[in-house]
């Protein structure tokens, strides 16, 4: 969505050899936007499952990196002596 990736883009990438979610994500930038893939990764997972003929539960999910939601840098700001 926010990275403007279409279903066609995903299908073409799968056919080019990007046959797992981690690679599709990095090749197309699915899930790299502000919501961190909450919306588009499940959609991409469905397309991958259909294209490869592999059930979704066998494909696995992408590694979820902290923080779970974007948080402002100031939450981590410390006095210079503390770090």
């Amino acid at each position: 969505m926010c990275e403007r990736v279409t279903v066609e883009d995903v299908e073409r990438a799968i056919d080019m050899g990007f046959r797992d979610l981690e690679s599709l994500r990095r090749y197309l930038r699915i899930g790299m936007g502000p919501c961190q893939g909450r919306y588009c990764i499940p959609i991409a997972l469905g397309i991958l499952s259909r294209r490869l003929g592999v059930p979704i539960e066998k494909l696995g999910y992408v590694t979820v990196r902290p923080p779970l939601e974007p948080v402002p840098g100031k939450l981590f700001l410390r006095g210079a002596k503390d770090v």
Partner: protein
Amino acid sequence: MYDVVIVGGGIIGVSLALKLAEQGLGRVLLIERSYLGSGSTFRCAGGIRASFTSKEHIVLMKRSIELWGELRERLGIKYARSGYLWLASREEDLERIKGYMRIHHMFGLDTRLVDEDFVKQVAPYVDTSGMAGALFDPLAGKADPFDSVYKQFLAAKKLGAEFLIGKEVARVIIEGGVARGVEVDGGKLPARGVVVAAGAYSVHLLDRSGVKIPLTPVPHHAALTEDFERLFDPLIIDVASGAYAVQTFDGHVLMGVDVEEAPFGELGVRLAFLEKVVTVWSRWLKWLPGVNILRYWPGYYEMTPDHHPILGPVAGVENLYVATGFSGHGFMMAPVVAEEMASWIASGRPKSREAGNLVISRFEEGRAIKELAVIG
């Protein structure tokens, strides 16, 4: 029978697969246990420089930078010669970067001290009020790790290189002092040559194959902000802490700094890292406390005793080659490493004397690489 099997689908393995395919050096197979780039490559900052303090690093990286330029021309890889900028906040840090500069000049590297006006031009969103001085390297730059792996992967595949992804190599098969192939899924894949380019995981793989290598994986950490328009072009380094920050091709700011980690430590989350990196960079990037941190991840530096890579043939095992131990600088070195490894495989010799100095036997023979000067 494969002519060459490459173990490891990071930037080193993928660059080598392309190089071998281009040179028509027979049937090439690359094996990656997870997904391409999944080890250290996709966790790295993508910085590229020749401004080191040993002859080996400087000579090899000068060639690598030429080759990065060619990769951009030929494959359209996202690479920019946007510089490195060392920011000194104290007089002692300024003295240290002057020491670096003297070494760079000995090897014809055109690094120079720059003033606030210059910094404001190349890095408009860096606050210079606490700056005692700065060193700029115009030959340095950055490339996009995803783009660099994927475009070389697609080009190599087109030229006939084969890729086996999602399979782990159990061991290199060595019989009578000769590498004969690799074991995957309980079966044997025979090969005339085997290249181990498995980054931090090379030490475990070689250990399972009966080969010792002085390699110690150490966790490092990086964090990424949301994306912005142009903030600063060069990769910036805070000399006092060694922290770096780079604005990626997608506009995010990727930052890293050392925190204490044990050798062979697990890749885990450290709140202390986020605190240190945000606190250090908030002195130069005054807007950082107000912007969002999107992601944070750990990754390995695979360290050698002299912090230089291990390249080329392994003494005592015929047809076995290694390209690992980059100690945090593997991404930038990949193009020259591919060229040197292809030369070793094709002709039995490296292309340059400096690459030849990096063979594994240097440690036993007392020829570990020496820095030209100990600075600071």
